[in-house]
């Protein structure tokens, strides 16, 4: 039963492009092998250990409340060379700021987001809605009944989060901020510059 359990789990996780919740894996396996019902949790833990020990090209990660089979970080370079469409940084600083505000303050309206950022954010919001990283949760009662936004599972997947609770507490960021000491300049900007240079190098590599 154990071998059969492992192969079924692996097959399901291999096929599913979305993270599979435990309950779904459980239901599918019980249908196949009713005896699994009592020992599912133990067997699934064993399965995960088996995958880890095997040190193959894939691993099982916890994301958006489910399990997902992904390639190992050690294989990242080779995998990215295989992919035709290069992934560069997908989110602008503005997008990351808006996502952070929504993630911590949801449900939240556009005016509330713009008050925190001090700048118009409607374009960013539209873009994030199109990418299904945020969704409309309803309308806020009050003048104009503005739309309320919240993050989606797509957001959790994009950032490899199991749930919103996996995000650090906001106070932890406060501690990171130098209160009166020197600032490390614009680490963010510098990093994105560095990444741009990197991608430029890659392009020249390709041309060769």
């Amino acid at each position, binding site marked *: 039963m154990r071998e059969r359990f492992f192969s079924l789990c692996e097959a399901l996780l*291999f*096929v599913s*492009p*979305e993270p*599979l*919740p435990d*309950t779904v894996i459980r239901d599918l396996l019980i249908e196949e092998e009713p005896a699994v019902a009592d020992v599912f949790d133990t067997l699934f833990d064993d399965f995960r250990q088996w995958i880890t020990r095997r040190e193959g090209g894939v691993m099982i*990660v916890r994301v*958006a*409340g*489910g399990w997902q*089979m*992904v*390639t190992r*970080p050690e294989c990242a370079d080779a995998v*990215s060379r295989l*992919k035709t469409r290069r992934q560069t*940084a*997908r*989110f602008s*600083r503005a997008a*990351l*700021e808006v*996502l*952070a*505000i929504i*993630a*911590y303050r*949801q449900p939240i309206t556009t005016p509330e987001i713009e008050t*925190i*950022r*001090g*700048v*118009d954010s409607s374009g960013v919001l539209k873009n994030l809605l199109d990418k299904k990283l945020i*969704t409309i*949760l*309803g309308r806020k009662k009050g003048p104009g009944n503005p739309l309320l936004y919240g993050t*989606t*599972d*797509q957001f*959790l997947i*994009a*950032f*490899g989060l199991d*749930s*919103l609770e996996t*995000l*650090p507490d*906001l106070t932890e*960021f*406060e501690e*990171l*901020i130098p*209160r*009166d*000491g020197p*600032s490390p*300049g*614009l680490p*963010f900007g510098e990093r994105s510059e560095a990444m741009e240079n990197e991608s430029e190098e890659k392009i020249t590599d390709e041309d060769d």
Partner: protein
Amino acid sequence: MDPVSDQLRVKLELFEGPLDLLLHLIRTQHIDIAAIPIAKITRQYLETIRIMKELDLDIAGEYLVMASTLILIKSRMLLPPSSQGDNDESAEVMQAELVRRLKEYEVFKEAGQHLHHLEQERQLVCARPTDEIETDVHTEWVIEASLVDLLKSLRDILDRKQDLPHHVVRSKPVSVRSRMSAILKILSERGSVIFRDLFSECDSRQDIIGTFLAVLELMRLQAIRARQRKMFGDIRLVAYRPDEVAGT
């Protein structure tokens, strides 16, 4: 020109707004955020705006609003307290509010950076592309129910409950909004629900229609999906992303 302005020449495009620019001015000069030298910062801020204009950069209106706020604080600081009208906020109050906003914004800026790290980490691993295979967690319920199916089901329900009154007077009218949250609550608890069962406790036609409209609205918002096991079969509503509903 002071050295700060020189630095700004190359970094202008990187500012996400007036708060970001102010933070930059404060941080690069190692100034305590709680004790901003308003006169100095205002001068540097205006100088930056001038450079932005010179470079023909689009200056969003928000930058100018902030400029006028800074000038206002600066001018109020020059006035003796007695000469201020009672309705005017004092320079201290305005500055405290500005500091509060800067601190709040800075926290979210950090949080955004954290997301950036998470994204980079996540990009090291690769999952199967989502658009390749259509899967559904409720594998048996694979047929997407159409509006026609939903309307047919509604007709059956209304037929079966013909003796119901059209309208029941209540202290609170049934709102589609409250129906929507009720449906989402059921889905977060049970994962899915048979469409027909949603109406079992409806005691008026108005109630049924309200629930039906709520289902349509949730489908439009892509919060739920309506699925069938076979054509013309029972319709089952599933949360579009079951865990998210449970998680919120």
